């Protein structure tokens, strides 16, 4: 049986099972980490977004083999950080979460953006969220929330 070892939310983990599993399934089934959602299963919606070595990745397109030796952060790991709290507060204040399905992916995409660009413009935010769909279409509130987080949390990123 194939073994794959990686760091998940700060802890070293080993998964026994085929390399050709989708990492999204491993997260949800083996680790009961259900923040990452399956929306489309083909990289269109971003609901399954996680950070791998600090980079935003669609976990539905990620074979388990490509996670070996990497450091993975899911929303469950991220939510203990100050940065998360800043984003959560900003999303709440701006009403940026409606049905909530897209929110975990939106938060991970926001973190990926802010970790590279502390003070993004509206255009840059829209660009960074290009792979995250919100079917409640609350995009303007999400953009406002990211701007608020960037402003109020300037020291965090």
């Amino acid at each position: 049986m194939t073994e794959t070892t990686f760091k998940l939310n700060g802890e070293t983990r080993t998964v026994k099972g085929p390399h050709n599993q989708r990492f999204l399934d491993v997260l949800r089934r083996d680790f009961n980490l259900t923040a990452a959602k399956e929306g489309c299963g083909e990289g269109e919606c971003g609901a399954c977004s996680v950070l791998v070595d600090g980079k935003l990745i669609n976990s539905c397109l990620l074979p388990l083999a490509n996670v070996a030796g990497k450091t993975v952060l899911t929303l469950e790991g991220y939510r203990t950080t100050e940065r998360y709290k800043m984003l959560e507060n900003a999303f709440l204040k701006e009403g940026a979460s409606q049905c909530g399905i897209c929110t975990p992916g939106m938060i991970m995409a926001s973190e990926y953006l802010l970790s590279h660009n502390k003070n993004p413009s509206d255009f840059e935010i829209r660009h960074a969220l290009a792979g995250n769909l919100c079917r409640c279409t609350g995009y303007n509130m999400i953009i406002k929330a990211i701007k608020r987080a960037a402003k109020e949390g300037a020291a965090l990123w």
Partner: protein
Amino acid sequence: MVNTHRVTTLQDALRYLDENDCYIVNGGTDAMVQHRSWAETPVAFPKDTLFIHDIKELNYIEAMPETFKIGGTCTYESLLFHPGCPKVLKACLELFASPGIRNTATLAGNIANASPAADGLLVLYALNAQIVLQSRNNKRILPVMDMITGLKKTARNKDELITEIVIPTTSFTHSYFKKIGGRKSDAISKVSFTGLARVESGIIKDIRLALGAVNITVVRRPEIEQDLIGKKVTDVISMISDIKARYEPHIKPIDDQRSTSRYRKTVAMNLIETFMKQLAQ
């Protein structure tokens, strides 16, 4: 149930390819969708599978005065943020998929997949890119036009791996990339177009047009381009309808869920005209 093997060195990859007939997975963004199975079950790759994305020695970008070289496991996001990335490639990558896909998808994978709608491939055609194919005992270099042999078909032998993409450094006075998709980002092209030209003192010194998603492979017609080289830009403007008529037989798009043949053909023709008009500006 297929066997899978993951490698982290080029030597191991080439040895495995020499000894096994296998399907290669790089970043996985196309492969994982193409062979998607029932939810929560492993992806059903067609045969034994080799995972090559973690070959670190192929994860590089080398910007030299004469060439821009891209390693076989280098992702699109690394390319996009590299200061030496050719302008037209950068213009393409800004609209290419989404950050989450660009962080794992590779240019080498885009070539190997040989989709007629591959935006990366379109730009490589226009830039006269060369593809380095390596096997256990051999290494050969093919122009991208010879690498792609048909719809989703390439000249890669089963024991070979795309190890590098070489783009010759060329300066252009005109650089135009246009993608027509259902939305601005994260869309598969309905039609895509790349136009490059070097115009000096009103004379065309170099010109390249490439069209995507309008035939089984990217359309580039060197014989039409050759006839334009040496011409005055002002004369070319009056030749636009002739130029379009010469491209017309090669623009043979299909009807599919993304668009219609008629729309694609009309847009492709309009893009040729737009680019030719830009040359005079």
